């Protein structure tokens, strides 16, 4: 039995675990505010809030219900636009109306929910962050200007929310209806986790599987990671960091220690998927997907990373580059799972940078992405790691180029030779993300961009 709360309603259902949550909401519960726009997480018309208890505390964030299997809702509070109550428009809804930020209205419920999620987030609200809350919502009518005005209005009327009790503050100020105050207790009463009976398709965040084959998942059934301790959480021991495979992109990007080690982490994160997808998609899923342009794979290939696998034969750990064996082919035995990723945190002498160019800057798949880490000792490159996606059948660690850089002076001559070597190491193909020539050019430019961002003094004008 799958048990959860949908708005103010207690749900117990025996419907298939793999049914998209969106279909349950619309066609089983009859609440049609969440819309079917694309069923691939790209438009945000089906965006809802997901509330979950973590260590007794209730936190909400946005997810796309089209890519969420029904059983994932177990034990959680799902909130659709109807769940904001019918009494009076909330300040979010009012801002949208006041600024005429609605036209055909099809994207509007998703946008209202994304902005409500923003109000519920515990990050400091800046204009930049507030606007980014809508990075997973498409609107084909307004051209976004009126939406921006509505968001700015919210920033004016949203005074500093108390950090400790945002929910009660939001209830008091009409952002949420009163029943939200009961949700912690209600969810606590759903004790047992959802257990599926048989061997089924294992789903992590679902953000790729549900794009590729939703019908097949409905037939095969789905099962989930069961929050195994070794696969959750981010642990740092000395300079080695372990990220569990179930950790979401958002959790990585908001981790204080990681933000300290990667000062531009938040900006990199903006180039990866969208807010709701980052709330759902996991590190393990990004690696298991084995896509040649997987953003996290590229990010971590430029660090000294290993992947930890657990299976019937026990645990093994292998260097991340060895994990990717061919197009969509992994060194993963039957029954094995990705448990975690380990990597060396960059020290004070190590310079790291991530670049990505896609047709659209946000919520798009890279034409080419790349990461570079360089450890300098007195102007000499002690170690370098260059990775690139979209230029080979696998997320590529450019071993020869990286090796070449080691021991060299960091100067234009070295970089020119490294560029030539990198071009030999890659084998891009022409596809919808760009022609082969473009991808070759783009990698060269991104390599230059790494140097430009990290060592502007080395990067000379062309």
């Amino acid at each position, binding site marked *: 039995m799958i048990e959860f709360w949908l708005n103010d309603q207690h749900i117990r259902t025996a419907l298939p675990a793999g049914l998209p949550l969106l279909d349950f909401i619309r066609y089983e519960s*009859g*609440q*049609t*505010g*969440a*819309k*079917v*726009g*694309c*069923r*691939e997480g790209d*438009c945000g018309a089906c965006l809802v809030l997901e509330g979950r208890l973590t260590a007794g505390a209730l936190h909400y964030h946005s997810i796309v219900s089209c890519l969420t299997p029904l059983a994932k809702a177990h034990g959680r509070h799902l909130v659709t*636009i*109807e769940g*904001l109550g019918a009494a009076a428009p909330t300040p979010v*809804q009012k801002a*949208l*109306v006041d600024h*005429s930020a*609605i*036209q*055909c*209205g*099809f*994207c*509007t*419920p998703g946008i*209202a929910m994304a902005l409500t999620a923003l109000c519920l987030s515990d990050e400091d609200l800046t204009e930049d962050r507030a*606007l980014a809350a809508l*990075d997973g*919502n*498409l609107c*084909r*009518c*307004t*051209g*976004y*200007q*009126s939406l*921006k005005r509505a968001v700015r209005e919210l920033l004016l009327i949203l005074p500093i929310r108390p950090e400790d009790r945002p929910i009660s503050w939001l209830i008091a100020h009409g952002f949420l209806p009163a029943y939200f105050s009961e949700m912690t207790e209600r969810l606590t009463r759903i004790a047992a986790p959802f257990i599926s009976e048989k061997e089924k398709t294992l789903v992590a965040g679902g953000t790729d599987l549900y794009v590729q084959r939703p*019908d097949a998942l409905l037939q095969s059934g789905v099962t989930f990671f069961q929050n195994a301790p070794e696969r959750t959480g981010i642990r740092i021991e000395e300079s080695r960091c372990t990220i569990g495979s179930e950790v979401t992109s958002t959790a990585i990007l908001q981790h204080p220690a990681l933000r300290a080690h990667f000062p531009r982490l938040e900006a990199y994160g903006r180039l990866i998927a969208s807010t709701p997808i980052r709330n759902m998609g996991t590190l393990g899923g990004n690696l298991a997907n084995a896509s040649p342009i997987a953003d996290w794979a590229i990010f971590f290939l430029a660090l000294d990373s290993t992947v930890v696998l657990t299976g019937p034969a026990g645990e093994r750990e292998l260097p991340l580059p060895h994990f990717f064996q061919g197009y969509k082919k992994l060194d993963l035995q039957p029954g094995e799972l990705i448990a975690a990723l380990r990597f060396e945190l960059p020290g004070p002498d190590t310079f790291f940078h991530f*670049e990505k*160019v*896609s*047709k*659209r800057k*946000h*919520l*798009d*798949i890279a*034409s080419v992405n790349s990461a570079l880490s360089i450890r300098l000792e007195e102007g000499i490159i002690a170690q370098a790691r260059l990775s690139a996606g979209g230029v080979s059948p696998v997320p590529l660690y450019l071993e020869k180029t990286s090796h070449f850089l080691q021991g060299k002076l960091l100067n234009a001559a070295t970089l020119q030779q490294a560029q030539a070597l990198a071009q030999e190491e890659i084998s891009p193909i022409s596809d*919808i993300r760009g*022609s082969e020539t*473009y991808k070759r*050019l*783009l990698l060269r*430019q*991104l390599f230059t*961009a790494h140097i*430009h961002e990290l060592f502007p003094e080395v990067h000379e004008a062309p």
Partner: protein
Amino acid sequence: MKHLDSIAHVTGRSRYLDDIPEQKGTLHAVVFGSPVAHGRITGADLTEAARLPGVVAIFSAADIPGENQIGGIIPDEPLLADGTVHFRGQPVFVIVAENDFTARQARSLIRFDYEPLPICTDVQEAFEKQSFLFPPRTFQLGDVDACWPDCAVVVEGEAATGAQEHLYLETQGAYAVPLENGAMKIYSSTQGPTLTQRIAGRVLDLPMHQIEVEVGRLGGAFGGKEDQATAWACLATLAAWRLQRPVKLVLQRHDDIYMTGKRHPYRSHFKIGLSKDLRILGYEVTFLQDGGAAADLSPAILERTLFHTTNAYFIPHVKATAYSCRTNVAPYTAFRGFGGPQALFVIEAAIAKAAFELGIPAWQIQEKNLLAEGDAFPYGQLAEKPHARACWDTVKTAYALPLREKEIAEFNRQSTWLKKGLAMMPICFGISFTKTPMNQAGALVHIYQDGSIGLNTGAVEMGQGVHTKLVQVAAKALSVAPHRIKMEPTDTNRVANTSPTAASSGADLNGKAVQHACAQLRQRLHEAAGKLLQADPDAIDIREEQVWLSGKPTDLRWAQLIAEAFLQRVNLSAQGYYATPHIHFDKSIEKGSPFAYHVYGAALITATVDVLRGRYELDSVEIVHDFGNSMNPALDQGQLEGGVAQGIGWLTLEEVRYNAEGRLLADSLSTYKVPDMGSAPKRIDYQMLQAEGPPLAILGSKATGEPPFLYGIGAYHALVNAMQAFRPGLQLDFEAPLTPERVLMALYPPEKEQS
């Protein structure tokens, strides 16, 4: 007045097609689209699919009782393929099952055999083979051949614009319900309820009165649900009629993207000649329109391309010829601008090329040639109150063009890896359906006994706010508060023989019909009030729900007046009708006066290019737009801003490509990228031109649906201008969209890199 649907939209209570509660026994349909772009069907095995539990029926062309024909202008498009398929995704079978999951499973079990036929996906190839959908047309003014010797500079070139997917957030869909006595009710997500009704009747061999089409609202359309909503409505209706059960057919996004047509790609050749003082003397252009596999709306779109050949300029010698070429892709269709943007792109490319040749900014040529009162368009209509120059001059001063040029030049001197550019973009767009008979509309207004009002028109609400404007029109005409008026769903049983809500004309045509109905009601109410007050009806007035007599308020208020009028047996319903006067066009000579009026405007667009990565941003779009007397500035602003973003999307990110097999390469939202908040212009500012609106615009408020889309063309030139700051002498090939790939490849051309 706020958009009528504001509260319903933000609370998620607005009902779209897929939200209509399903009747008991409703079945679900999916469409099997041709897996090949061109082929002769040699056989199909449906047995496995039909055997799947839950599958109720699979229909093919043979099951159509009437005509298997949905072509609106030219009868060249079957509803279901019969013998031959002409594009990938062309409907071949419709599968009906207890639920859509089962229907999709069944679809995957259909075996389809065919004999391949040659596939053409290239407009140039189709042109060379003289493979046309209908005969070409030519518009002429003056004597272009004779003018070239008088020109100080003549340049020639090519320009090409790509297709554009509508990406209305609500996909196409219909829900067909059998009624008693063989009638059918169709809920359809269509811009053209009457069109749907007429074609469904043709397909089922039913008279139009047996088919009722109702439209609540659309989740966006942009032209994509004008002709191309028909097929899905007809397929659902065919299945419902044959099974005598309700059938719902809602396309999944992937099916919608690959089965439906898009904005027409054009490839054009131009020749432009200028005098020494930068006056354009001659312009000769050949448009190759890629029409796809069937005519659809292409004849009308091609015509509008010709109408907009010269944008907002007067050119004394013009020759424009347009060919519609047949290719094996989904028939291209209406999309905001309707062929106009494609024409404007070419004239602006020609001007940019001439400017490059002369080493001057393009705006100097643009400015010299703007339309003046009485100038002739190539189709013979004379420009009446053309606000092209007023808009231009206001933009230039309000947004400080010379200063901005200086600032950008200074920025570019300081910055190596970011470069800025700007462009000016004047626009001109003709308002009216170019097919004169379509410029008519009806309205039905009921005043109920309690004083509340029901308003019926042919206008379909798709986000543009036409229903809001119509309520404003009625409220003003009857002098009542808008809250008394309910806008009814658009329904062919209430208002018949309507034109699609298209051509930016929805508010004008339907608004004038509403005014006509309300004027009749006003007259009757004045008479009723006259009886009550024992006064001359001519001395009666109604102001803000109060009856006035000889210029003084009386105690008689709206609700009481209506109640009394009912007792007096006054007809409280009125049917209004409107046909745009004065417009005409003679195709045999390609001359006439087809437009009620023109909309003008001008924009200054600035952009920044990251010349290291090829990425770019649109910094600002500053516009002075000719709204006439805007009756709803908030709605008009929404149309302006939305149109600009969509126009920019067309020329920057939105790339539609087919491979040689006619397979659409960007066939999902993960590969077809429309503007998001991050890629929309950082700032759109505008001013309303201070000018009286024309009498043929509703309340003097000019149509705003399509014209703003045209400003997007300026974004292309602003980007090129920025790129030229990095690579002086860089000349682009006028191939749009200008994707980040095209930008980077142009900034670092391979051959130059080697030298």
